[in-house]
């Protein structure tokens, strides 16, 4: 699997869905999540060098996300990708176990930086079940594991609708945040859709 294609595909999906993400963020945030992520990912894609090993690709993408995105999602997704990159170390190939470790590192990075727990109505709520599902299916190979992860992300994101936010801007709304899909959880679904798409190809 080519992790560069993962980032490219994530960027494509975010571009296609930017206005939906922004709309979700208008409902319970400040209406910029789609724009932010689209800007950051385009920059990340432009910064990618095709000849780098997977770890370096993800670290570069992460650094660029941090530099270009802004908002909460920039440092969070950026840190996630950098941590994932670090987890790959100098590996030249992406196998199911390596990717699993990288995803776990990404989740931990986000939790460490943002201090959000599951149930706080953030991207963590999509990421956590996605990583768990991946790990559960890792034995079945990359394609199956990433499909399971996508499934987990979707379910996790959907479950944020019923939650009251306790982190990020949506928390300011108190009980009024209930009934809305968290925009960051929605974009995390796209991250895993991109992963499943690319892993499915190879």
């Amino acid at each position: 699997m080519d992790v560069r294609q993962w980032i490219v595909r994530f960027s494509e999906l975010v571009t296609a869905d930017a206005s939906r993400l922004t709309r979700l963020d208008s409902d319970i945030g400040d209406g910029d999540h789609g724009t932010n992520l689209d800007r950051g990912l385009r920059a990340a894609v432009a910064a990618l060098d095709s000849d780098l090993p997977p770890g370096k690709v993800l670290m570069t993408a992460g650094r660029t996300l941090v530099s270009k995105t802004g908002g909460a999602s920039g440092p969070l997704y950026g840190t996630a990708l950098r941590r994932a990159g670090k987890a790959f170390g100098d590996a030249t190939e992406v196998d199911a176990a390596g990717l699993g470790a990288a995803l776990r590192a990404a989740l931990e990075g986000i939790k460490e930086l943002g201090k959000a727990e599951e149930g706080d109505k953030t991207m963590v709520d999509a990421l956590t079940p996605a990583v768990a599902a991946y790990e559960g299916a890792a034995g079945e190979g990359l394609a199956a594991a990433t499909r399971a992860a996508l499934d987990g992300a979707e379910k996790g994101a959907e479950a944020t609708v019923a939650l009251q936010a306790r982190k990020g801007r949506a928390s300011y709304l108190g009980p009024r945040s209930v009934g809305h899909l968290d925009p960051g959880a929605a974009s995390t679904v796209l991250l895993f859709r991109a992963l499943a798409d690319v892993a499915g190809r190879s």
Partner: protein
Amino acid sequence: MKKLIDAVDDVVLDALRGMAAAHPSLRVDLDQRIIVRADAPRTGKVGLISGGGSGHEPLHGGFVGYGMLDAACPGEVFTSPVPDQILAATTAVSGGAGVVHIVKNYTGDVLNFQMAAELADDEDIEVIPVVIDDDVAVQDSTFTAGRRGTGATVFVEKIAGALAEADGAVADVAAVATEVNERSRSFGVALTACTVPAAGRPTFELGEDEIELGIGIHGEPGRERTKLRTATEIVDFSLSAINDDMPLSGSDVLVMVNGMGGTPLMELYGAYAAADKWLTGHGATVSRRLVGNYVTSLDMAGCMISVCRLTPRLAELWDAPVETPGLRWGR
């Protein structure tokens, strides 16, 4: 959406171009996207910088100048600036005496400033961040991201800026900024939503007879939607919320009746009349005030009231000369 812009993607850059052309006393770096005092860095002076999403003008760029900020780093509309940008501002104003970062309490701002401070540390610049969280509309609990930073930011930037201008030490500048934040509270009300250029539609829908109580400055809805009220009712509600959190009776206060961008000055003065009456009636002495658009939310209609309980020293620092595009007196 109708806006006086060329292209939605260029609004921040075009505004910076205008700032650059309009204010020779500022140095605007269009690549780095920072606004810096033309005379920065001054050796031995503590650097004071702030930043945040654009769309709150004159905050922060309009408060760069003598006696206030040394630099501002504007992000995209309602989006915190990025670490590189904050680092560039930090480096540009560093005169060897340390730099204070005024950070409004939003996850994005806090994270990006934190990353910038780490980068500055690599360059041996001492950075002390001061997080502003004055908005009483938000519960400060472990179940939220904490209170938002809103109107009091102006108070902090002015007062800390005065101390930095008077060659205060970095720890003292940070301490006075913290003190002002702790002694200040704000509450905002929206009559309309605002429209983020890139989104192209209002951030929320509000009926012809509805208002939002307890809004922030990013076009997000407030704590509660209610029927339209009179200016006096809105002001009284806002001040009661502040007073419940920080009793004002017996205090000498600085008060700001701040427009969110789309409310005429005539209405803000009417609201100020109500605020002055409420405060005086509740035992506070209003000795200083601002009435106008200082911390805006694009074209949102509505107002935010901020109150700071002054001490003689804070009053003196407030009164010290300031010369910025958005706030000027004494020179």
